[in-house]
């Protein structure tokens, strides 16, 4: 396609795609026999209408920001990291090891180490697929899928046989040391004398996620490595002409991507559960794909898309409560449709929009 103005590419087309996804979901709601507009209202009220709802919405969004950034960074090098799920799981292991066995005096000291450990574990989990892609040409999508499953089996083994305290039934680790517990939104607002409900799991990691958005933006658009990654993503032949090593780009990109996915566990494992559970990721690795596609691989876009999916996840839970006929899997359907329209069926909207635009342009001249 010829170059469309930026606002069409960044705002109009994603908006139309989102609209299509919502429209089809709405039809499904109608089929189920409920009013889609009321469903929408419940979702929005439940997720944004109260501090309580907002606390959950942003907690989910924090997870999706990390996994979304992970997918987005890889997209810049034209790589599809579908292994966020496994990388986040193994990242959770990294977090847990730091928080289980060291008696931290204060969370501010524990946090940097936990971040490092989570990122390192997540990155390590993406290193083998990255290496196989760079040196052997094994398709990164296939290898990262396999690594998701291997990660899951490994976590089950570790939790059942290694990390589970004696005498406990549930396959989960012991509770983390108290010094590693992160302040929740309730605590933070409390410091400033403000009230925030106690139950939502929103915690200080949300701020970390925003910082990550900024740092990734800096990395991709302001550093030499980011420059090289983008160049490689657009044209591998030109990158080689410019002296950029494809091997290095693939490795660095995937390690950063895996590290980001791993850091999701700071929110879910260290911030919320405060112990390692078998399924600490709960599909967030896949939601990241939708968030990255929706957000056009830009950190700001990923942030907004992550909040949108946070709204859907929290609102979906409310929806199930208010409209028992519509289960929360409605959200998975919407998510699938968003991926379908923004990712796979991109040309369905882009080509006609491009044509309309060209015609309008021709008329003006």
């Amino acid at each position, binding site marked *: 396609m010829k*170059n469309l103005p930026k606002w069409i590419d960044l705002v109009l087309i994603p908006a139309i795609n989102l609209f299509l996804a919502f429209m089809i979901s709405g039809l499904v709601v109608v089929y189920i026999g409920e009013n889609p507009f009321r469903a929408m209202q419940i979702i929005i009220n439940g997720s944004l209408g109260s501090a309580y709802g907002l606390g959950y919405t942003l907690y989910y969004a924090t997870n999706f920001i990390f996994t979304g950034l992970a997918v987005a960074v890889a997209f810049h090098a034209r790589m599809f990291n579908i292994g966020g799920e496994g990388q986040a799981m193994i990242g959770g292991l990294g977090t847990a090891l730091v928080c289980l066995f060291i008696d931290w005096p204060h969370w501010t000291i524990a946090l940097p180490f936990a971040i490092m450990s989570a990122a390192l574990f997540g990155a390590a989990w993406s290193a083998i697929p990255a290496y196989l892609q760079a040196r052997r040409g094994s398709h990164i999508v296939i290898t990262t899928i396999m690594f998701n499953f291997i990660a899951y089996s490994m976590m089950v083994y570790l939790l059942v046989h290694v990390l589970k305290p004696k005498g406990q039934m549930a396959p989960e680790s012991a509770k983390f040391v108290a010094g590693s517990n992160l302040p929740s939104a309730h605590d933070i607002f409390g410091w400033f004398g403000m009230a925030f409900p106690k139950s939502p799991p929103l915690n200080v990691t949300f701020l970390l996620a925003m910082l990550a958005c900024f740092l990734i933006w800096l990395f991709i658009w302001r*550093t030499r490595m980011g420059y*090289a990654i983008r160049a490689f993503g657009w*044209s591998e032949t030109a990158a080689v*002409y*410019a002296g950029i090593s494809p091997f290095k780009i693939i490795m660095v990109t995937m390690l950063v991507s895996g590290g980001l996915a791993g850091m999701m566990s700071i929110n879910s494992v260290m911030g919320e559960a405060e112990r390692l559970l078998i399924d600490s990721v709960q599909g967030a690795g896949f939601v990241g794909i939708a968030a990255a596609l929706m957000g056009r691989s830009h950190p700001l876009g990923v942030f907004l898309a992550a909040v949108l999916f946070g709204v859907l996840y929290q609102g979906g839970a409310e929806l199930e409560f208010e409209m028992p006929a519509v289960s929360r899997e409605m959200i998975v359907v919407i998510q699938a449709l968003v991926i379908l329209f923004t990712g796979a069926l991109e040309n369905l909207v882009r080509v006609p929009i491009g044509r309309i635009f060209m015609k309008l342009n021709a008329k003006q001249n």
Partner: protein
Amino acid sequence: MDTKVQHDSAAPMIELRGISKSFGPVQANKNINLKVSKGSIHGIVGENGAGKSTLMSILYGFYKSDSGEIYINGKQINITDSHVAIEAGIGMVHQHFKLVENFTVLENVILGMENSFLINTALNNARVLLSELASTYSLEVDPDALIEDLSVGHQQRVEILKALYRQADILILDEPTGVLTPAEADHLFNILRNLSKEGKTIILITHKLKEIMSVTDTVSVMRRGEMTATLETSKTTPQELAELMVGRSVLLRIEKDATEVGGKSLEVHNLSVMDKRGVTALKNVSFHVRKGEILGIAGVAGNGQTELLEALGGISPATGTMKIDGEEIPLHDKGSDARSRREYGVSHVPEDRQKLGLILDFFAWENIAFGYHHNDEFNKNWLLMDNRKTREIARQEMAKFDIRPPTPNNLVKNFSGGNQQKIVLARELEQNPKVLIVGQPTRGVDIGAIEFIHQKIIELRNKGVAILLVSVELDEIFSLSDRVAVLFDGKIIGERITEETNESELGLLMAGIEDGPEEQPAMESVA
């Protein structure tokens, strides 16, 4: 096929009337007319991008022409897709073979012509036919061999067999000898002669004049999308064809003063390169370029120019030695990448700006740092690039090189070809290189920009930079270079001082006619 349409024996086997085809803004074919008579071998010569392949793809139904008519054996045919072309008896051997590599020869031959749901019968029929064809045309090939195990020459025979299995009366061969050894090429020409004796009509697309002279009956010349001449081969000469190919368009001779020529800056000795198919594309090439000198590398496209540029630019590994100001530079493994090459002071304007020289989806200012993004001038500190300063540098360079529009905040794909080329040139020239290697600097560039680009290259030479200019445009070679070396078949087959040679002499060298004894015979001029 053989219809009751009144059969005019004088009607040409193939007739094209007014064929035109555009790809976006590029007009690949302009109002082409052509007649080829039955049983003849007709050559079409022209440079890369002259529109030969496009024309033949239209004849074969792979592209649709925008206008024009095609007559086969006197009958107008609307060739909408390859299927229609095959029905009309047209077979094509593409430059890049359309074979399934892990299929056997037989499977490839019957693909698309299986005739029944089970393929056994077709395989058996093909096996019989293949053995017949093998004896008639000396087209021997093992029917059960996998394509990937065959030599390139044999793969080409499979393509010909495919066409004959489809009962083709017309055979189009697109640059058939590009990948063949001389012996294989000779064998191919024998096959073609046999085929034409049996009444098949053959179109041979090539840029090798020697082949045209040795095998064709008639020949057409294409240049910049137009058919400029159709001649009888016996009544023309390689020189005439070379001149028609390169064209005698506006001569833009640049005023260039003699300069102080310094010591040897770039020295290359015994440079050899294997291309992706494992064929040796450059064979023991040696030359040097002095400071303040332009060495032109002339030659018909496809004789090793691309490989030479890529080896010198650090894109692909090579063997031999390369020295800059006496210092040896690795040609393979560690330290042979393009970034190290730049650090040694070699700037490279690649022949394909869109695939190599630019990131089309980057802004102009981002492209100004491309390849030099590690240099201090584009960086704030150890971590961050200085985008503001890069934009400022881009603005200055764009003004200096008269790039339009002069806005750094514009995606490179929105610039015209000439302005894109100027962006590459601005970037590479402004790095004050010791050595500049340039490939086809004015390909697809409008006249005004050509003159400007030439001036800039001369300016750099006058500053004392050693410049290697690879160009298939003889005009360009003559107007810029101080010395000329001619590349043919991966070897340098002759070298001349520009002032002391002429286009006819170079044309002979370009056609692969090696240096004879000292003196060149006087040429009857063809003006």
